[in-house]
């Protein structure tokens, strides 16, 4: 099949600009929305409430039991409360009562059964939020409690992978195993026989909460023609539209979703906005009034998806010289009460399960199972941080067993251009494989070898440690669906430019990178552009803002649109200036001929001329990634278009008396193909490290045996503060260009958290000479293990 035009354009731009100096790309330029944010003028979803009158507030009555049958619901008591307009239950839903993101397993309003503590049974709609909350106490629900499962090992046996007898959580399905992905490569048995050393261990990672500072919110507004407009904090406006249309039984073009400023997402606002949007829209549909759903912090923690907790058994086999021979793993992901993005997470987990290494023999089984914990879905990394923790711990332990330096062991086995991944995908220069360079940068900058020796000999109360971890992360969505993106560029009559895309900003700033790409190709400064907020009525569906895809996919779409517009600008200018189109130089506001710079005009004049000539100056840029390939039974194929690689060296100090850890320095390097927006890239390296540090040291959502949450607020769910931040950050970027990325760029949104936790735990392990197999490692865990090993006596 012939190469699509848009791919040809991306590759042409990659070649043309390779090694050339760039004007906007790679420069630190103040982002478009910085001023609005520092002045407090930026409007986030809940801020819009000040503009609407006659609102109704929607309060979700949630279940008292994490697992129970619902025998009956009586809302009459609540409906009688003054100020309550309606109490909505499943019976009132006009369309389909489901908001499942991947599989239709998640009712918006529970009616037969509840499966986790956040399940909503009724919506109390009142014109005062306090009335709504108080009235909810008068809804009477008849429950028949069922056994509560909070550990995936109660559902499936980790070693046999067989489902255990238990009270079915999703009885409508054959099994509570939601997904099972595999890799079968080479001959693992043979490799085990030939191995000089075999290392096998069990690993655990916790349920992590996104804890974005802006809680979820949705406002719905009735339109005169029966349509509904929704303003909500979401990463996927077109998915919200689809979900709301489905719940209300309305056509999609009657639902409009607008995304204002969003205060953090990290994957947590991928599917929950469908739920909030549908709740608000339902209230509007049934009352005819604008409706609002705003989560308190507790509702946010209890009521949205989480990072899948993982239990995994890993076995690595290697030769004496450090060559990896085989990797085996049984990986259990706890997807909680509902699947959410669990099936996709399980797939990505499997793809990345052996780490960025040459592994020809592998047997991997990943299972995602239901339990009665809060449902897990998308969270920065999407399964990769979980397995990369296990893999990088395994590598360090192997290094110890073999007496090889951990860096040397990595260098011996990492993927380089020309190698095949465990799925058999051949990685070439075209993909950009800069892992070795990334490792070398952090090893050199951190003075690894000296510190590794020096810290090993310490004997005092405070012990220093230095650790390394590497990681990889496939860009965009692989086999999860059709992978496309789009950007519309409109050059207005006065020469300013309107930039439209369905991709959104949650703080990550990738849209600015897209503008810099368009700016570079058009030859105009970024401040000519105005980015419109995502709006299903006017910005094109660019796919969801997830999977570290905005820069690559959105960037390519922006590139294609800008390329085509530039061609037309060149044509018109060449007519005006009488030189060939290839010679037109645009340095807006100036446009001139390269061969004769005296022949010049302005950007505004060329734009005006094209209006007179009837040459349209708007362009819809579209880019579609080639279909990913994946064989279900063997895991062979080409799962991702390319991979971002990273290496981190962390230095810690541990206090043996208390178990406290200070992360002193972080040396971070990512191969992102080409740095488009360095401010954004640096933010990711620093911010991703801090979030990953929280994952390593302090964060975990804890369920009671009954499925309640012990720590549903920010004083009991600890995220890092100013005082926890490492003193020093050293950030490096490697540019091993990806030929089909915009100017060679790859994504960084998720890769920037992947190697963090293992680098810190490897450092702590080094500091204490003790092996750790789980995170988080708060002081009490470290102290008690150190005590058990005789490092402290009290």
């Amino acid at each position, binding site marked *: 099949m012939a190469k699509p035009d848009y791919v040809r354009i991306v590759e042409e731009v990659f070649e043309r600009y390779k090694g050339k100096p760039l004007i906007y790309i790679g420069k630190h330029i*103040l982002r478009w929305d*910085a001023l609005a944010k520092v002045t*407090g003028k930026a409007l986030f979803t809940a801020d819009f409430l000040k503009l609407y009158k006659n609102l109704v507030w929607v309060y979700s009555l949630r279940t008292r039991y994490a697992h129970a049958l619902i025998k009956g619901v009586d809302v009459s008591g609540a409906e009688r409360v003054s100020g309550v307009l309606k109490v909505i239950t499943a019976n009132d839903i006009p369309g389909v009562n489901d908001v499942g993101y991947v599989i239709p397993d998640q009712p918006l309003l529970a009616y037969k059964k509840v499966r986790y503590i956040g399940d909503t049974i009724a919506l109390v709609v009142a014109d005062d939020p306090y*009335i709504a909350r108080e009235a909810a106490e008068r809804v009477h629900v008849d429950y028949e409690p069922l056994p509560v499962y909070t550990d995936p090992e109660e559902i499936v046996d980790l070693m046999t992978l067989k489902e255990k007898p238990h009270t079915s959580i999703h009885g409508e399905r054959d099994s509570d195993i939601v997904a099972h992905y595999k890799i079968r490569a080479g001959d693992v048995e043979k490799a085990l026989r030939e191995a000089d050393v075999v290392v096998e261990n069990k690993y655990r990672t916790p349920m992590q909460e996104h804890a974005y*500072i802006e809680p979820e919110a949705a406002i719905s507004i009735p339109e005169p023609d029966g349509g509904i407009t929704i303003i909500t904090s979401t990463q996927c406006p077109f998915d919200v539209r689809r979900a709301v249309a489905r719940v209300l039984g309305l056509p999609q073009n009657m639902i409009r979703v607008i995304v204002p400023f969003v*205060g*953090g997402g990290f994957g947590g606002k991928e599917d929950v906005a469908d739920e909030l949007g549908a709740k608000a829209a339902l209230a509007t549909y049934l009352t005819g009034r604008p409706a609002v759903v705003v989560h*308190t912090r507790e509702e946010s923690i209890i009521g949205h998806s989480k990072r899948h907790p993982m239990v995994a058994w890993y076995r690595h086999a290697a030769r004496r010289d450090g060559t990896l021979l085989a990797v085996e793993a049984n990986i259990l992901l706890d997807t909680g009460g509902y699947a959410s993005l669990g099936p996709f997470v399980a797939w990505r987990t499997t793809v990345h399960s052996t780490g960025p290494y040459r592994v020809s023999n592998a047997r991997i089984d990943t299972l995602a199972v239901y339990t009665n914990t809060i449902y897990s879905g998308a969270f920065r990394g999407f399964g990769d941080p979980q397995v990369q923790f296990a893999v990088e711990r395994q590598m360090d332990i192997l290094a110890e067993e073999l007496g090889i330096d951990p860096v040397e062991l990595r260098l011996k086995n990492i993927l380089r251009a020309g190698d095949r991944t465990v799925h058999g995908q051949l990685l070439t220069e075209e993909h950009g494989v800069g892992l070795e360079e990334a490792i070398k940068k952090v090893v050199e900058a951190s003075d690894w070898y000296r510190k590794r020796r020096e810290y090993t000999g310490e004997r005092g109360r405070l012990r220093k440690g230095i650790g390394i971890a590497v990681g990889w992360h496939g860009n965009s969505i692989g086999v999860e669906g059709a992978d496309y993106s789009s950007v519309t560029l409109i050059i207005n009559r006065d020469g300013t430019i309107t930039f439209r895309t369905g991709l959104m900003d949650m703080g990550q700033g990738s849209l600015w990178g897209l503008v810099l790409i368009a700016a570079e190709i058009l030859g105009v400064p970024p401040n000519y552009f105005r980015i419109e907020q995502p709006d299903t009525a006017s910005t094109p569906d660019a796919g969801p803002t997830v999977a570290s895809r905005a820069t690559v996919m959105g960037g390519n779409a922006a590139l294609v649109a800008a390329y085509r517009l530039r061609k037309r600008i060149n044509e018109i200018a060449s007519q005006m200036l009488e030189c060939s189109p290839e010679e037109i130089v645009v340095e807006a506001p100036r446009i001139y001929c390269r061969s004769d710079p005296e022949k010049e005009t302005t950007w505004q004049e060329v734009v005006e001329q094209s209006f007179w000539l009837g040459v349209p100056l708007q362009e819809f840029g579209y880019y579609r990634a080639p279909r990913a390939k994946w064989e279900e039974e063997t895991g062979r194929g080409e799962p991702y278009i390319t991979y971002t690689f990273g290496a981190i060296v962390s230095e810690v100090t541990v206090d043996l008396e208390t178990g406290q850890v200070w992360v002193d320095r972080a040396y971070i390097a990512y191969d992102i193909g080409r740095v488009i927006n360095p401010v954004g890239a640096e*933010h990711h390296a620093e911010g991703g490290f801090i979030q990953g540090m929280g994952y390593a040291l302090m964060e975990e959502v804890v369920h009671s045996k009954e499925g309640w949450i012990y720590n549903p*607020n920010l004083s009991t769910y600890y995220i890092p503060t100013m005082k926890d931040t490492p003193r020093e950050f050293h950030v490096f970027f490697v540019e091993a260009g990806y030929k089909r990325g915009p100017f060679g760029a790859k994504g960084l949104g998720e890769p920037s958290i992947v190697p963090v936790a293992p680098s810190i735990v490897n450092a702590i392990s080094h500091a204490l000479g003790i092996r750790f197999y789980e995170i988080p490692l708060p002081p009490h865990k470290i102290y008690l293990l150190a005590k058990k090993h005789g490092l402290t006596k009290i």
Partner: protein
Amino acid sequence: MSSSNGEYPDIPIKLNVNGRDYVVTVKPYERLIDVLRYKLGFTGVKEGCGRGECGSCLVIMDGKLVPSCLVLAVRANGSRITTIEGIAPEGKLHAIQKALLDVHAVQCGYCLPGVIVAVKYLLDRNPEPSDEEIMEVLDGCLCRCGTYPRFLKAVKLAIKYVREGKTYFDVKEAVEV
């Protein structure tokens, strides 16, 4: 909000916010944050947790830095309050706002109003705070995007600006980067 809750009385209170006097009617259970955001429109004040644990709702009230989500509206009767909308005159940026732009310390921006108000409060009391004092005040402002290292840089830059007599900048000057 609170249009029909007849069980509770309507209490008039007087506030001075960002230099102007306002009279609003509140329910006894309403919080200062509700009044500022929804009755008076100062949505620069953000709600992140409602429990005084995240710092996004900080305002300066009668010279003290307080979390507006933990102050009952009735308690604010007669108070002078400064929100982020009032830390600089119209058309101007305070040194800390300019510094945050200069060191590129803006990601999602949701925690920024709290940070900015806290730093304004700090610098008004002590234009040369030590690192420890800076950390003390900012420790309570949670930022999930992880902009912490740049906050510290920004405060140090703001201190420098103030020392050079530049407490306020024209907005136009600030964005010409």
